[in-house]
């Protein structure tokens, strides 16, 4: 028997490393079972996860395991009698989370040891590279990608073959292939999961791309907040180099290409491709004017091609299975699958990969199990700070570049943050504008000043100081910023504001006219009081209140002094009788 623990970043955060240590501590020198680890299984809501394998066959998946469970797991692995771990086994309902997915980009995630080249090879790894290098011309590779219909997964959805072809056609002394692993959308983690869990698939996908465009060097620009991704990729690059999969004369085919990692330093705008190139050159990450496009003049002024991690993760599968098999999935204008990071007020959060053409409802209810604590679904945010909020009555929108763009949101890179009735949509718009105003590089006046002005207006609205005409002013500013911005950051920054105004105008109006926050989230618009009929006088809230705003005698109704109350909400969670009223 073999015990395998899911040890991606989020598994570790949930305690997987402690479980690993606890099991290891119980193992004897000639133990009858082995212990290993894998990357992201993607069922974050069940982490830490421990899988029991018999050879290649998964016999039991144990979930929400703690270090205290180590002894029964070890016992089960030794004896083969699994009755002791029965209570940890994943439920049939939860198994559906994976069963309902179609995994291509994530095909090895949670199944192989991320840092084992052998594991990757045994899972068909590097066969696509061999096929491409030995039996296909670069043009044929590009043609296969064209047939597949693969479009960029970094957000904009530009056809991958077209970019590759442009870079191939471009004349230059050296060409570069760059992977955008900056994953700037706060709330998205697909790219981290792929690099951490299956680094060789990124290397293989990139090598095929490098062969197609004629690149001699590959650079991966990884977000600094992803230390485990960087470590695993470093190990994989080393192993690939030793196996002659990187470097000179790869697999004896005469094709040479090497690879290196560059850690980002925390600037959202560096996800924009020309800013990323500036950053690679050691400069401040300010976007460049296009044209010239990177395919003509990119890194070091040489022809360069930039793709997202997930884009590359699809490439070997396409070469192995053919472009047509990929294009068979999806809709008219969106082919293949897409990975989403499902988070927020969702019952089952994690990584979801499904064919294009499914609906948002399929993902949020069919796979994610709907909203936590039986609350009402309100909206889902897609595309992060560049995207928008899609409301409940559009839940049947299909996942397709065009259909999503029609809602005012975008497909984006895959962040899907679910919100319930307790999320204030004006607050959400403010949250994103706080972010973009902070991250604007400052090069264009419209973006720099425009986002700051919008942030100001939104701040005053959530404080109850909004004025008639503020909504219109916001709309006007949105237009101006869209038109006057040089790069995608500014051009898309208004989207969260525009979509929330479009679908939740009534919430804006309630803040401005009635000085009320319907979601009861905007602190400055809330009043706390105690329902004298429900209060039992237990004094708990008075003890808990940090502002000492609550007074009253034991067993008698308490009262809150509104002038002292700092609206921290702590009394609400401390009262067991639901006596605190928030309005």
């Amino acid at each position, binding site marked *: 028997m073999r015990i395998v623990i899911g040890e991606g970043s*989020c598994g570790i955060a949930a305690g997987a490393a402690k479980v690993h240590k606890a099991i290891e501590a119980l193992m004897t020198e000639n133990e009858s079972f082995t212990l290993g680890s894998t990357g992201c299984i993607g069922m974050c809501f069940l982490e830490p996860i421990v899988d029991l394998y018999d050879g290649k066959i998964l016999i039991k998946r144990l979930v929400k395991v703690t270090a205290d469970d180590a002894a029964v797991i070890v016992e089960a692995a030794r004896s083969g009698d699994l009755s002791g771990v029965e209570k940890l086994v994943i439920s049939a309902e939860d198994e559906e989370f994976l069963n309902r997915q179609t995994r291509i980009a994530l095909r090895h995630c949670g199944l192989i040891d991320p840092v084992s080249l052998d594991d990757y090879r045994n899972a068909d790894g590097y066969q696509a590279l061999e096929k491409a290098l030995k039996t296909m011309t670069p043009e044929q590779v590009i043609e296969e990608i064209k047939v597949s219909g693969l479009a960029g997964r970094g957000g904009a959805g530009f056809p991958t073959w077209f970019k590759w072809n442009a870079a191939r056609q471009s004349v230059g002394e050296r060409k570069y292939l760059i992977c955008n692993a900056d994953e700037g959308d706060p709330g998205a983690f697909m790219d981290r999961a792929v690099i951490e869990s299956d680094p060789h698939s990124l290397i293989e996908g990139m090598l095929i791309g490098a062969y197609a465009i004629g690149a001699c060097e590959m650079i991966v620009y990884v977000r*600094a907040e992803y230390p485990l991704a960087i470590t695993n990729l470093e190990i994989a690059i080393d192993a690939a180099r030793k196996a002659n999969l990187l470097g000179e004369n790869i697999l004896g085919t005469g094709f040479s290409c090497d690879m290196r990692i560059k850690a980002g330093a*925390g600037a959202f705008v560096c996800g924009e491709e020309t800013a990323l190139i500036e950053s690679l050159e*050691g400069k401040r990450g300010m976007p460049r004017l296009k044209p010239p496009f990177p395919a003509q003049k990119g890194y070091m002024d040489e022809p360069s091609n930039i793709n997202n991690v997930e884009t590359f993760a699809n490439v070997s599968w396409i070469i192995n299975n053919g472009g047509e098999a990929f294009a068979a999935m999806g809709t008219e204008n969106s082919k293949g699958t897409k990975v989403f990071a*499902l988070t*927020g007020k969702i019952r089952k959060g994690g990584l979801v990969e499904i064919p294009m053409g499914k609906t948002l409802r399929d993902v949020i209810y069919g796979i994610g199990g709907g909203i936590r604590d039986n609350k009402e679904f309100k909206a889902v945010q897609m595309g992060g700070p560049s995207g928008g909020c899609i409301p409940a009555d559009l839940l049947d929108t299909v996942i397709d570049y065009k259909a999503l763009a029609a809602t005012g949101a975008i497909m984006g890179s895959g962040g899907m943050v679910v919100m319930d009735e307790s999320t204030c949509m004006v607050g959400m718009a403010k949250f994103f504008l706080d972010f973009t105003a902070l991250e604007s590089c400052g090069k264009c006046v419209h973006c720099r000043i425009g986002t700051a002005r919008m942030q100001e207006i939104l701040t005053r609205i959530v404080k109850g100081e909004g004025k008639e005409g503020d909504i219109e002013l916001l709309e006007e500013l949105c237009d101006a910023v869209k038109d006057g911005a040089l790069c995608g950051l500014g051009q898309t920054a208004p989207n969260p504001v525009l979509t929330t105004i479009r679908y939740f105008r009534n919430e804006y109006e309630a803040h401005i006219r009635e000085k009320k926050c319907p979601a009861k989230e905007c602190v400055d618009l809330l009043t706390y009081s105690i329902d004298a009929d429900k209060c039992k006088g237990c004094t708990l809230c008075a003890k808990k209140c*940090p502002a000492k705003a609550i007074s009253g005698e034991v067993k008698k109704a308490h009262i809150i002094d509104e002038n002292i109350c700092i609206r921290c909400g702590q009394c609400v969670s401390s009262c067991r009788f639901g006596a605190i009223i928030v309005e």
Partner: protein
Amino acid sequence: MCNCSCQGPKSDLSLLDDVLKEYGGSSGNLITILQKAQNIYGYLPKDVMYCIAEKVGVAPADVMGVATFYSQFRLTPIGKYLIMACQGTACHVNGSERVTAAISEYLGIGNGETTADGLFTLENVACLGCCSLAPVIMINGEAYGNLTPDSAVAVIKGIQEKEGK
């Protein structure tokens, strides 16, 4: 060794020798050099930046420009424990503001500040990539998820206890 003439407290610049030997040849490596320097000193002291400028062959203002552009770089020393409080979208929706406010109130420090005893620095960050465990904080590389204001403060108290405070 570097023989620059800048003022202020002196850092042990010899610690930079290996980094500069490996990366000093090209201004394209400036960000990498600053990252390695920050790993050594915990932040970017002024004399270190001057020394890097001289060795890499760029103006000190350019080094400063890069150091201030990227949020990862710190120009002041940090505490023994760096608390990174996620303010990403998923964490925001799940109440990160209350969690951060509780930590901030308990330690008496705001974003970017360090406690008087030099133990903790609080820093707001955009996303730690563990969004399904939101709200999340990370302390010296270890992530803590599914936090409430109380459980976050309990984590900090645990560290204080360990440090005998």
